[in-house]
């Protein structure tokens, strides 16, 4: 019905190979993009700054992680550290007078280089052992940042972002910061979507599925594993810098501690590994659902419909949240993206029921 495929004829290769060959998909993407673009017009500052902005930025970080975990199959449990390197690099560069545009690239490069050093462990170990190696990165980076006062900023351990401009636009207003984050989101989304159709992306998938099989068919695993770490850390570093400049406006070590790593992994897993829409859905789930539940329960208690202590009131949302994670994963183990995918596939052939694949 919505996805009417009859009458859609591709007469050129470029048509079949475009990102969204089905018109209905193009419509959906277009509407979503328009909604995101117009968000400052119809959304209150509260929703824009507290929900939309962190959701977009954390989504880019999740997408960067999903490039590594979902496409290349390399587990990474130190991604908050990658973002921290990016954030601290960008803030120190801009403080030294480097323009933000270059500082962002610099932060990406710095994260990529350090990320590659730890990623080199992936050349020897796989699976859970790689988790340990990247975990070491998380704790090492955390330790270095807190203990080297030149990086963390002395006893107070908080660095304020200086007032900067991006492409001659001062990043003071919420709208400006939102559009910078949105621009970065669009770049990352297009990058991840396109990477799947390149030889690079296919090589990553081959490495993910079986690395020695990939080596047999002529994929240089050494090169592609490192490249995967490089690309993912590069995006992660810039996302960290964007997070610092557009959302937090300050950097402290606790913004990038181990818990954030776990959150990022959860975002990627709950959303669905390797999927772009899953990155957004997973981030929304992990980041926003707890606040929504919290406000819902506070509202119920505030209206006197439920008489519980403050402490229990604070814990009920966590119970619901935990139940929701289990519920969703039982319903569809492949994540939220797969639920979307199932619905889409059902509609593709509707009213017929045959949905092979």
């Amino acid at each position, binding site marked *: 019905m919505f996805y009417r495929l009859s009458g859609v004829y591709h007469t050129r290769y470029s048509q079949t190979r475009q990102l969204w060959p089905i018109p209905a998909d193009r419509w959906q993407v277009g509407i979503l993009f328009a909604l995101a673009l117009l968000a400052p017009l119809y959304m209150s500052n509260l929703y824009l700054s*507290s929900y939309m902005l962190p959701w977009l930025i954390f989504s880019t970080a999740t997408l960067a992680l999903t490039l590594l975990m979902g496409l290349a199959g390399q587990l990474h449990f130190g991604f908050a550290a990658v973002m921290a390197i990016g954030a601290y690099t960008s803030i120190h560069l801009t*403080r030294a007078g480097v323009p933000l545009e270059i500082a962002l690239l610099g932060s990406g490069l710095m994260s990529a280089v350090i990320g590659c050093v730890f990623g080199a462990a992936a050349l020897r170990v796989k699976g859970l052992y790689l988790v340990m190696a990247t975990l070491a990165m998380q704790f090492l980076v955390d330790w270095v940042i807190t203990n080297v006062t030149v990086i963390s900023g002395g*006893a107070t351990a908080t660095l304020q972002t*200086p007032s900067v401009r991006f492409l001659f636009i001062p990043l003071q207003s919420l709208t400006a910061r939102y559009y910078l984050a949105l621009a970065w989101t669009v770049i990352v989304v297009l990058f991840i979507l396109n990477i799947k159709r390149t030889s690079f992306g296919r090589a990553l998938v081959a490495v993910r599925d079986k690395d020695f099989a990939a080596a047999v068919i002529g994929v240089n695993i050494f090169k592609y594993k490192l490249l995967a770490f490089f690309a993912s850390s590069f995006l992660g570093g810039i996302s960290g810098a964007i997070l610092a400049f557009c959302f937090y406006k*300050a950097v402290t070590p606790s913004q990038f501690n181990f818990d954030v790593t776990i959150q990022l992994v959860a975002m990627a897993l709950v959303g669905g590994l390797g999927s772009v829409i899953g990155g957004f859905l997973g981030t929304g789930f992990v980041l926003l659902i707890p606040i929504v539940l919290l406000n819902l329960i506070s509202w119920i208690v505030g209206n006197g419909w439920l008489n519980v202590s*403050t*402490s229990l009131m604070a814990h009920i949302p966590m119970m619901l949240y935990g139940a929701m994670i289990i519920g969703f994963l039982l319903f569809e183990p492949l994540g939220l993206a797969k639920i979307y995918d199932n619905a889409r596939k059902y509609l593709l052939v509707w009213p017929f029921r045959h949905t092979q694949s």
Partner: protein
Amino acid sequence: MNHTDLALSRRTVLGAAAAASLGAALPVWAQGKDPIQFATLLDFTRVYTFLTDEYSQGQQDYIKLLNLEGGLDGSPIKLIVKDHASYPERGIALYNEAKAAGAVFFDFLSSPVANALMPRADEDHLPMIAFAHGRADAADGQAFPYVFPSAAIYRSQAALLLKYIDEKEGGLKGKKIAFVHIDSAFGKEPIELLERVAKTKGFELKLYPYPVPGTEQAATWSEVRKNRPDKIIIWGAGPGQAVSIRGAVTNGIAPKNIYSVIWLSEADMSAFKGNEVVGVKRVTLVNTGTETPIVKRIVEKVVNAGNGSGDKKRVGGTYYNIGVATMAIAAQAAKLGAQKAGGPVTPEKIKQGFEMLKDFTAEGLIPPLTITAQDHQGGGMGMISEWDGKQWAPKSDWGSAYQDVVWDLIKEDRAKAKEKK
């Protein structure tokens, strides 16, 4: 009566009904003034769980008492209590929500969230209290005009311990002092002060960091034992504190030689059997127990009337009374500010009210607190108390220590921050 009046009174009734359902306002809403909203966004579920329940209970009980006694010139205070779980991004979201709902005063009780929100609160001109936590330079009213630690900051607490050793425990000169601390910004904050005082007073300072979250300290304590220090200062919070004391005791260190930062409660100490830990000393910034007039009245009018916000046993505990103190200070500031300028309570007036506090003791609950536009710490007074097996018994009078050194450090921080901008 025209429509606006009707709408206004209806909103008032609704607001008051909401406040009443929180148990916050009882007789005052008959007077029909809009409630003043204080937002206490705390961490009930993740890092600060060891104290938040008790602390928030103290805050809620005090606000109930205040509303029973007429609120702030007839306006009841409504607390917005929510859980940010120490996630800075969630703290920011809840802060924005509370701001939109009209909250005029904030408390976060979590260093990560407070640190993330201090610059925002300053930008938005909304006053916040950071009682004995958060960044050291918050004490500097020039750097953060809207942030009020309102109690001895960590450096001042360390100074109080040193001064006590110097005056009552046979002097600092020639002593070996071990500083056993959690390896985080909070744990490292007093180091600069300790080093400076070590130079002038001539004692030997040894640092022993242990890793976050502090549940594993065995290696650190065997290291401490090797060096045989005369006095030991422990600097941690939550479960790590009991682990520290356990580590000290099992390594043969006498409890009387252990000194702690403020975060060491009755519950931490009661976990030890018998006289094992009698003699441990701690910085105290708020009187414990139920003897001070405010807490007494809370017991009479709120708790015994069956309106307490939590477990009766916790009333009068260390963290409970700290919660009471934070709200008492904030309410006094709001009162002073509104009296001076007249009209309804606004964030700006609360800020000015804080800076008008002079020798405020909350009826004997806290040491005299005097806040000025420069000094948001308020004098840095406190006392040393000792665990006697049942409670924290005072061992000294209220006083402050080495404030010149504390302020030298704050000024240096400010100079550094300026350099970087």
